[in-house]
């Protein structure tokens, strides 16, 4: 009898532990359904970023910043040398894998792909990826409109995007102005100048430099 009691006493802490663990796991299972967006299925869709994300061990957003800084450095280096930015899309894809809510990489990556590499479709694809991950963000939609206007010269689509951006929360006043202008002044050089002037207000010095160059070109065209 004493032996059985001793055995039960020895087992008791482990049974308590199992009960507590089960309680915790049950709670976590319930909580997960409520709080965690995106699962492993979504990650498998982006195999290149999957490994980086897993290796980050919970520090994905800091890893995204490292990749972002590396992307900027890559762009800066090639801008001074061969003007080839072949890997910029790949780097920004990795940043997006690591931190899908980080907006700037979609905008900067899309801008470089469309404007500098003359691949607007790829740029728009990156922006679309950002939009799917951040459906309420007006900036990404507006940027897509911008690329449609200045790179693809597709004014009707640009107008649709500007209108869309002007209906999203947090949009600035100029989104509505561009939405109105784009339909009235399709192809108008003045409209393009206004759009490029908006880029000057961004915090990205590389985008500002391209904007200055484009504004200079448009100014010269106007004088001719």
């Amino acid at each position: 009898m004493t032996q059985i009691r001793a055995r039960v006493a020895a087992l008791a802490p482990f049974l308590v532990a199992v009960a507590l663990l089960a309680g915790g796991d049950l709670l976590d299972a319930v909580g997960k359904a409520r709080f965690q967006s995106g699962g492993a299925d979504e990650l498998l869709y982006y195999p290149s970023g999957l490994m980086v994300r897993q290796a980050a061990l919970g520090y994905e957003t800091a890893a995204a910043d490292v990749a972002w800084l590396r992307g900027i450095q890559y762009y800066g280096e090639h801008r001074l040398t061969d003007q080839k930015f072949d890997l910029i899309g790949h780097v920004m894809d990795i940043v997006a894998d690591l931190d899908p809510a980080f907006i700037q990489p979609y905008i900067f990556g899309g801008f470089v792909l469309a404007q500098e590499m003359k691949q607007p479709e790829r740029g728009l694809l990156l922006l679309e990826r950002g939009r799917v991950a951040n459906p309420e963000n007006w900036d990404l939609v507006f940027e897509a409109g911008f690329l449609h206007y200045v790179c693809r010269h597709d004014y009707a689509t640009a107008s649709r995007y500007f209108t869309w951006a002007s209906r999203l929360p947090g949009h600035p006043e100029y989104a509505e102005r561009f939405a109105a202008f784009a339909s009235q002044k399709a192809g108008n050089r003045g409209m393009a100048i206004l759009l490029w002037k908006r880029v000057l207000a961004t915090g990205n010095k590389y985008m500002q430099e391209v904007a200055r160059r484009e504004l200079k070109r448009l100014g010269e065209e106007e004088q001719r």
Partner: protein
Amino acid sequence: MIRVLAVARNTVREVVRERIVLVLAIFGAALVAASQVLSPLAMGEGKKVVTDFGLAGSSLLATLLAVFLGSSLLHKELDRRTIYAVMAKPIRRAEFLVGKFLGLWTTTGFLLAGMTLTVLAVLTVVHGETPWILFGSLLLTVMELGIVTAFVIFFSSFTTPGLTAFFTVSVIVTGNFAEQILYFGGHGDSPVLAGMTNALYWIVPHFATFNARGMVTHGIAVPPERIAFAVTYSLLYMGALLTVAGAIFERKDFR
């Protein structure tokens, strides 16, 4: 409880004696330097970079301190034979262990809070914004730190400091892979492997539950309900670990 708190108080003194305040000073200096160097390179994303690096750095440092300071805590008591003096007093071994746990967790928790306050101070001074929502993430990281500390105490109740550190780091890595372990195991052909990975999933801590760093960086406050879930989960998990650790320590031969 008084006995447990007395051990905890002594553990805090013992850990503080290791000059961990230096870590706080170094962290602060590194963060200020990083914010000055990285902000201009981040193309308008300086605030995000400082927040991310600050939160990740503080969490990583506190975790490493918990692992490396904690893994030798019990061993030192045995090595110096001070444990005999403690055990001669009216205190149960399990209470002694819980006291050690509370002392270590409190110290690393306060250190983590100090580092988070440094991040807030840097953001306020350099970027002119004070994102109070960082405290939501801090609370979750403190609870995560509690599980890590409980693992340190659990492993050190039956193994050497080196192995304690190794096992705890392994748990941290596995805990961060918990979702993937379940996913890949469940999508293989082998039902045995699926069963094993499923079992492993339920045993290892789900550290993703405590990761709200990305959320607060993007300006989203951690919902109180999520905090309540995570706190309860971690308390249950810590309870489980300390119960087993206490049972093992009660049977440990100190000779």
